[in-house]
């Protein structure tokens, strides 16, 4: 599933951060308190993942527990891809 991590990181880095702050964006970085992703960025990221992975991410799943870092998101995506 390392592909999903790259997919998420690439989108955040190039689409949300315009290629800047690459050094701060680790797989385990807390995206929500670092200010790297804002609320609309999160909406765009989710739309992107739904399209690329052909999955449906219900609003109630978009929580801190599932989206705090790239690692955590990748683990969560596994659960929707297999279900």
């Amino acid at each position, binding site marked *: 599933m390392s592909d999903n991590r790259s997919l998420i990181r690439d989108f955040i880095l190039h689409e949300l951060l315009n290629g800047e702050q690459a050094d701060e964006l680790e797989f385990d970085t807390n995206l929500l*308190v670092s200010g790297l992703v804002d609320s*609309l*960025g999160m*909406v765009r990221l989710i739309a992107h993942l739904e399209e690329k992975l052909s999955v449906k991410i219900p*609003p*109630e799943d*978009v*929580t801190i527990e599932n*989206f705090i870092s790239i690692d955590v998101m990748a683990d969560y995506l596994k659960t929707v891809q297999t279900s």
Partner: protein
Amino acid sequence: MVFLLPDAVTEAAQVASERTAIVCRKESLSYGQLEQRSNQLARTLVDQGVIRGDRVGIFLDKSIESAITLYGIMKAGAAYVPLDVSAPPARLDYVVKHCGIHHLVTAPNKRRGLVQLLASSDSPIECLIGAPAIEGIRARHISWKDISLTSSSHIESGCLDQDLAYIMYTSGSTGEPKGIMHSHASGLSYAKWAHDVYSLRAEDRLTNHAPLHFDLSTFDFFAGALAGATTVIVGDEYLKLPASYSQLLADEKITTFFTVPYTLTQLLTRGALDQRDLTALRWIIFGGEPFPMKYLVSLMAALPHARFSNMYGPAEVNGCTYYHVPRPIEDEETPIPIGTTWRNADALIVDEDDHILTDNTPGELLIRSSTMMQGYWNRPDLNKLAFAKLAGTEEHPHYYYCTGDLVERLDDGNLKFLGRKDRQIKTRGYRVELDEVEASVLKLAPVEEAAAFAVPYGEGSLSIHVAVILAPESNQVTSIDLLKTLKEMLPWYSVPQKLTTEFTFPRTTSGKIDRRALQTRAAQA
């Protein structure tokens, strides 16, 4: 007797020491603990040379410490100056110097920002409270551990209610932030007003949604403390994930939720509200900007047991009018009014020559109230323009704050907000309210957010531009479709010449759309 803002905490600690005052993530403080820990900070500040009348900066994320800090600073006799941790270093450097901040309360996790903030060789900051040693920084430092070893007994600041309690820096139209000065009297007056209007009780559980540099936060802390209620500080991570925010509201059994329309719209569209038990919610209070009617109507339907209230007031006068939204809303299309002033405030409507209007014609709103600021810190130029001497008598004139907001008094006495005075433009020879254009665009179903702004065009003329963010399911809609519908809604001269769709908007530090940044960008294009 409660006449200083921290007196409310001291009194609550005497009446019910064990009652929970503050919650943040997994931590909480009782009123007794908040009293003691803020006393310890106050004593530390005094030991470090803070004297009555000083300004002490706060450079903290939302945390338990942020609540301790604002009371600790006021107990030391100083005014607190909350700094926006997300603001560019140059802006923070301006505030620190303009306000003469020698002492700053912070935390170890702000190391990176502190290095940037203290990089300026002539920074007046000489003491960091709550920070570790940082290489290359010569300011002395006191750790939170050191503070916890200080005596927690009560400390007398000697302050009067007319002394400054806090200074909040807000964007100025010239680009330089201006510091709004509030005394204990004006802050407490607002807290009493909020306490009264929303009948706050000790059993209430409030949120603290806004950061400390945003005036909404004074309601959460000061009105909450006056009621002896619990204030739950909402971490920034919740603001980005509405489904977690709604879960927090349910888990914490929040009764009184004061926030901005933008957050409520996010909760409605992405907050999975149908799966949350929010029956504890008594009040949903919103302010800061108009709430698009389509979202307000839907949210009221989604939360049938809660009462909704629109609170209006520039930070310069705190809250000054309120409107409790009736159920059902009679007219679901027309924006709700900002309501009426509370009993201890007076509203005047004046024309461009400051003549008082009494015939319900629109004009600028002027406010006289005990909640009014003392003025802008060290800006005599702005203070001359901010207040108008009107009414009263020659010997005892009345001073009003000029809000810059255009309003109209409705037949039922409620005030209707029409827009900002500086948002009224002339285009193609006609007078247009940009806020009215924006409100029309927001009525369109696919539009989630909209910003209207004027862009210079040709010689001395202005053209109207609109930027919109579409709802995720509406990405097939084009600008042409939207403009076509707008032509049917607005007079021809009000129809935007340009409409662009965006993914995201630049925002001010308080989360409002930064229309000036959009305007600058468009003017340069």
